[in-house]
């Protein structure tokens, strides 16, 4: 017997010893100059024109650059273009930066910009769309000299430069166009070549992107010799990677993890996102699925009545959403962008819930006992989405409106919403500027002009449409911003949507990063970091 147990314990001891021996320190063996980032953006492609999602553009902005750069106040700053001006109502001229070279050594010329536009407009049949909408208004593009791009537009597009803050410039190959497949093949095909501060080393879709410093970068020597992005989609795993020192920086940190990360010595940066999460009503159809009176009988669409929309807005406790569900890393919303950004109103302020007044309004609208509805939304797409549905249901129950939360995966949610299965739902919208969101979310839907692309509830308000159109005809500046703010105040009085919150982008970083400059568009880049001097 003794012999046997010794045999057993030998094995066990050997196992334990070997485990200890193999362990090593987490993160050991990394070059000290390498920046390691854990990101939620999964980088689906190396083609910068494949899909206009932060998922791709955030990481690709290391390799490629845009003509125009949006700073952290969302103001336009020179990027690859040093200046731009409207020559006439239908013509724009961009002057390119001198002495910019692509990673393959070729110089940046106006022809490359022409190629970029042609590639998006004429060549790509990407399932993305997204980018195409930026160039549909372009009649023709030409390059009178190597550093000048002239763009003729089909109509008056005062904010054309804004479109170019989203389009990455590629260089024209010897012939034809580069295909998405060639770019995705990486080193085996045509590795992506841009003008950006970092050059492409290798990638594995949905897993890793490795970059190296571009020593010839026009904006000066970038801060890190090597940058490695690890795609970690699980928030918990990102937090863990940061707290064990496996990575130097992690983005999209869940608000609830901030406190424990700080305790473990990580530092946190955050900024209110230039975006809005809201509740949207179907105000068009006469009967809505799931909307019934208390006895379960279908009723006429109550959301056509602004009083009902107003009552539900007053009965929504944004405090719980922001303080509890987002742990303080969110701003209660009363309009489309966080206050202070260009085009926002100063008078619109989020209100505390007023249940009694809300109940009175509901009674005035003919629903003293309230009604039943199904509150739909995506789960796991936006910070706090699924939880918000349930918290809002709790709030609304206090004025007699019985909401049954129905959360579904994002694509399922969208399929059902597009099929008309929902009456009221949770949504999100973002854009380069507030007028783009106003346009998409609240303008009367019109497939011809593309207005109201996100106005899935078919809200129509002609007075607002006119105010928005007038504001948009004004050139960038305080005048335009004031007109946009007034249009917002006017339309929000009608409560076409219930703005809920602007969540905060949260980034955590370790000792090797001295500071991190947040951007409201939610990008995660090495350029935003400042290396700690050791």
């Amino acid at each position, binding site marked *: *017997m003794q*012999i*046997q*147990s010794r045999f*057993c314990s030998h*094995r066990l001891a050997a196992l334990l010893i070997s485990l200890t021996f*193999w*362990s*090593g320190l*987490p*993160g*050991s*063996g990394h070059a000290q100059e390498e920046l390691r980032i854990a990101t939620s953006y999964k980088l*689906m*492609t190396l*083609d910068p024109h*494949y*899909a*206009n999602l932060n998922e791709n553009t955030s990481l690709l902005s290391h390799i490629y650059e845009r003509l125009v750069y949006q700073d952290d106040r969302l103001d336009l700053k020179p990027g690859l273009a040093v200046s731009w001006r409207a020559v006439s109502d239908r013509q724009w001229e961009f002057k390119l930066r001198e002495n910019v070279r692509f990673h393959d050594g070729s110089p940046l010329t106006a022809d490359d910009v022409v190629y970029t536009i042609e590639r998006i407009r004429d060549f790509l*049949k*990407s*399932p*993305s*769309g*997204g980018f*195409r*909408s930026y160039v549909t208004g372009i009649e023709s593009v030409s390059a009178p000299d190597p550093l000048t791009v002239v763009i003729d537009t089909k109509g008056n597009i005062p904010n054309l430069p804004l479109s170019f803050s989203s389009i990455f410039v590629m260089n024209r190959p010897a012939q034809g166009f580069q295909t*998405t*497949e060639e770019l*995705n093949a990486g080193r085996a095909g045509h590795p992506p070549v841009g003008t950006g501060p970092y050059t492409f080393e290798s990638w594995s*879709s*949905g*897993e890793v992107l490795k970059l190296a410093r571009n020593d010839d970068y026009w904006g000066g020597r970038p801060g890190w010799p090597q940058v490695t992005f*690890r795609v*970690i*989609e*699980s928030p*918990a*795993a990102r937090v*863990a*990677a940061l707290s*064990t020192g*496996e990575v130097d920086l992690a983005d999209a940190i869940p608000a609830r993890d901030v406190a424990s990360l700080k305790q473990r010595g990580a530092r946190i940066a955050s900024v209110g996102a230039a*975006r809005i999460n809201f509740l949207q009503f179907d105000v068009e159809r006469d009967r809505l699925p799931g909307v019934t009176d208390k006895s379960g009988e279908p009723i006429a669409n109550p959301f056509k009545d602004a009083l009902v929309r107003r009552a539900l807005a007053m009965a929504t406790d944004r405090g719980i959403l922001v303080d509890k569900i987002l742990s303080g890393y969110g701003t209660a919303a009363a309009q489309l962008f966080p206050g202070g950004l260009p085009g926002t109103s100063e008078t619109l302020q989020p209100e505390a819930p007023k249940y009694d007044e809300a109940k009175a309004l509901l009674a005035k609208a003919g629903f003293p006992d309230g009604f039943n509805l199904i509150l739909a939304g995506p789960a796991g797409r936006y910070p706090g989405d699924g939880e918000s549905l349930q918290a809002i249901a709790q709030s609304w129950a206090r004025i007699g409106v019985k909401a049954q939360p129905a959360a579904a*995966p*994002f*694509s*399922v949610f*969208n*399929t059902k919403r*597009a099929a008309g299965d929902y009456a009221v739902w949770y949504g999100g*919208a*973002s*854009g380069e500027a507030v007028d*783009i969101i106003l346009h*998409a979310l609240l303008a009367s839907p019109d*497939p011809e002009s*593309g207005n109201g*692309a*996100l106005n899935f509830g078919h809200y129509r308000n002609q007075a607002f449409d006119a105010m928005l159109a007038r504001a948009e005809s004004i050139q960038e500046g305080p005048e335009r911003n004031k007109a946009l703010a007034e249009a917002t105040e006017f339309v929000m009085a009608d409560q076409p949507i219930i703005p809920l919150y602007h969540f905060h982008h949260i980034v955590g970083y370790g000792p090797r990063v001295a500071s991190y400059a947040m951007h409201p568009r939610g990008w995660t880049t090495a350029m935003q970091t400042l290396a700690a001097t050791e």
Partner: protein
Amino acid sequence: MPLISVVLGRLSQAFLLLIAMSLIGFIGVHSVGNPVFNVVNIETATPEDIRQATIALGLDQPIWRQYLLFINNVVRGNFGTSYIYHLPAFALVMSKLPATLELACVAMLIAAPVGTGLGLLAGRRSGTIFDRTVLRSSVFALSIPSFWLSMMLILLGAILTGWFPSGGRGTTARFLGQEWSFLTGNGLWHMVLPALALAIPNVALIARLSRSGTIEVENLDFTRFCRAKGLSSRRILLRHTLPNISVPIVTIIGLQFGGMLAFAVVVESIFAWPGVGKLLIDSIQLLDRPVVMATLTFISVAFVALNALVDLFYAVLDPRVRLS
């Protein structure tokens, strides 16, 4: 014994299985939702963009035509292109395979010796406190749902003690043209918790199997004879008992290895281990149909092939069994 007909029967059954599964999976993913909404930025896209994207993915066609097209392509060895990653779907699955394989192998390397050892000892001393403890804990180990076991391992091994990382694959090294975690210390360190999560139920299963085998063999005449001859218990156990119970143990190891491929779905998701199982769950959630189909096909083929191998092995080793 006409082996050919057995093999043919097996093959036709596997083929039927694949057809049935592909049909159900195909329609299933189709009925859930439109993957276009995961490819297009819904916040900026126009209805025209969405229409274009639907056409580009071939989703505007009737479902039966999509299915025939899919089958037609699969016959030529092409599972289509991932909607999300724009890469060949089968190549994507293959690129995630090393992670799953190494995890399953390490888990089995833990489970097989520990389970056999515990079972031998328990069987040798059947009825003792040690035996009863092994038996009871095996019931509990087999009762724990693998996701809960994984979470408890994270709680104990990562959060409370900080000994192990709670997820991810760690540093990898290149070998045979693939990235492997088991070649680096950091990678192995990351592997401990997920491998334990896969191994623990198998330790229990193997221990119970080898325990009962041991009891049986220990009561046989030849063991008594050996003992009468004065051979040491250790020698009897290792030289005579172990070989005698090895057939069912190897069998269960083979079967459970296939099972691990399936349970990797859960464990890999929780530990953010970028293997085939996590790919399956991710693609189901993103409605990336080509990848879902490629992954399901791969897992089923692997599972069926493994089962067939195990049966064959069993038939060769055990003359009592006839393939029928």
